[in-house]
């Protein structure tokens, strides 16, 4: 119990002292997770919405696949990316293993099923009149989809936050394809794990505290985005 308080004290000390490794871990975590979520959103949001609004052939199978994919452990996703990027893999020649790009690739695979399922749910629940109104006024299917996404902005923001949270706290991908290299691919989560395995419990809490601050910041951003909308 005592180490929890020690941990908070140590965390504060590290944060105040501006320890470069700690702050770099923040940068790595943010860069990888934000990039992964943005890229995933570009793919998964229109895809999920298309299935929710237009129910294309075999949409049920695709939704099922998305939902199953949400349960894939991060270690497995990391192994998939590892297989792709290692020397013997398809993209081995590009020397991308143990870089942030590799982590982003893995977290992309993590975020896509989550975003796709959530956006499908949000759009499938809508009354048909919503998209019908856009279509009947002359919007093309893609235009109508974008307009409808604007109508479900709270759900969209919540989905993005969920995906961000999932990515920024994950460990399996960062360790497997990131290599946990300091100042390079060491994220907040993998820092915590490393310090824990070293027995430095207090030092393991510092990245945890920072992660929570990130979460607070992200949630505040989400709320601000929502309020912007309502003005």
């Amino acid at each position, binding site marked *: 119990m005592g180490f929890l308080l020690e941990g908070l004290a140590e965390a504060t000390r590290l944060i105040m002292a501006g320890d470069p490794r700690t702050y770099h871990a923040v940068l790595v975590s*943010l*860069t990888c997770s934000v990039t992964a979520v943005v890229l995933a959103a570009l793919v998964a949001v229109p895809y999920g919405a298309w299935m929710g609004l237009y129910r294309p052939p075999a949409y049920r199978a695709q939704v099922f696949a998305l939902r199953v994919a949400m349960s894939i452990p991060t270690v497995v996703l990391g192994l998939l990316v590892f297989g792709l990027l290692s*020397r013997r893999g398809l993209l081995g020649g590009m020397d991308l293993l143990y*870089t942030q790009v590799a982590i*982003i690739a893995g977290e992309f695979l993590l975020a896509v099923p989550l975003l796709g399922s959530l956006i499908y749910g949000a759009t499938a629940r809508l009354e048909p009149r919503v998209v019908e109104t856009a279509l009947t006024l*002359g919007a093309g*299917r893609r235009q109508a989809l974008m307009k409808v996404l*604007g109508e479900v902005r709270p759900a969209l923001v919540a989905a993005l936050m969920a995906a961000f949270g999932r990515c920024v706290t994950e460990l399996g991908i960062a360790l497997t394809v990131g290599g946990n290299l300091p100042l390079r691919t060491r994220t907040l989560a993998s820092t915590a794990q490393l310090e*824990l*395995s070293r027995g430095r419990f207090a030092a393991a809490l510092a990245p945890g505290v920072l992660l929570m601050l990130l979460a607070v910041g992200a949630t505040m951003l989400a709320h601000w985005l929502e309020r912007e909308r309502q003005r």
Partner: protein
Amino acid sequence: MIEGIQAGKKISAGRQEHAQARCWVLLIIFLMMIGAGACRSGSGQTVQRLRLATTTSTYNSGLLDSLLPDFEKRENIQVQVLSVGTGQALALGEGGEVDLVLVHAREREDEFVARGFGVDRRDLMWNDFVILGPPDDPAGVDGSVDAAAALARILEQGSAFVSRGDDSGTHIRELQLWKAAGIDPHGAPGYLEAGQGMGNCLTIADEKQAYLLADRGTFLAFAEHIDLKVLVAGDPRLKNSYGIIMVNPERHPHVASDPAGRLMDYLTSAAGQRQIAAFTVNGEQLFYPVAGTPAGDGL
């Protein structure tokens, strides 16, 4: 259900909304560029890059973090250290993902070289394993210098024993000791295969007040937090030798054999060995230099 006749309106409606979206996209792209920059930083043109795979217990001791920065600066080589399990370190060497492998599992190392995955294996340093247990020592092995017999007694008494169970150097040594004692511990009540790293296993053993085999370095790092004592030490079979091996450049032509050779030369040189001996944790020496090291003559 929507189908039917082509709509065909190309120009997008909602231009105002797009302007705001564009701002966000720009911000995101900016962030990505920072990230890409952070990515490429250090993999610069003039600095050579070297990848070394070692075990978690070796890395966690802090030895490499203490030794490498000077070397990196002097030689203008960037050393990336991957801290993984023994099995994984050797597998990475087999696959050519790394240039050097530093582990402590002699049989596996010899096999690695014999199968052509590594060349120029050198002894690097040694330390020892210890058998830890609860201070009240229910199995009564305190002070024993026969590690195999001690393990046998622990199992006989039905005491709990935590095993790494993860194919690590520590685990391999543990299995060798069981073999020497003529016992198969699997399935025995009290024999727990944790399948985790040394730190986690120490924590588990502490919680359960069980016995376990650990490397002294990790134990020292955890000593303040746990209620376990060194009960058995000094048996020659508890000696833990570390070897460093270069990944075979003939098998993987891209291996950075020149920087790898220089690191190996440094670590096995008199100066490097002195540094290794000088490394302490909480005032205690962790690693011992290898006597009679060959003069460095890398590839």
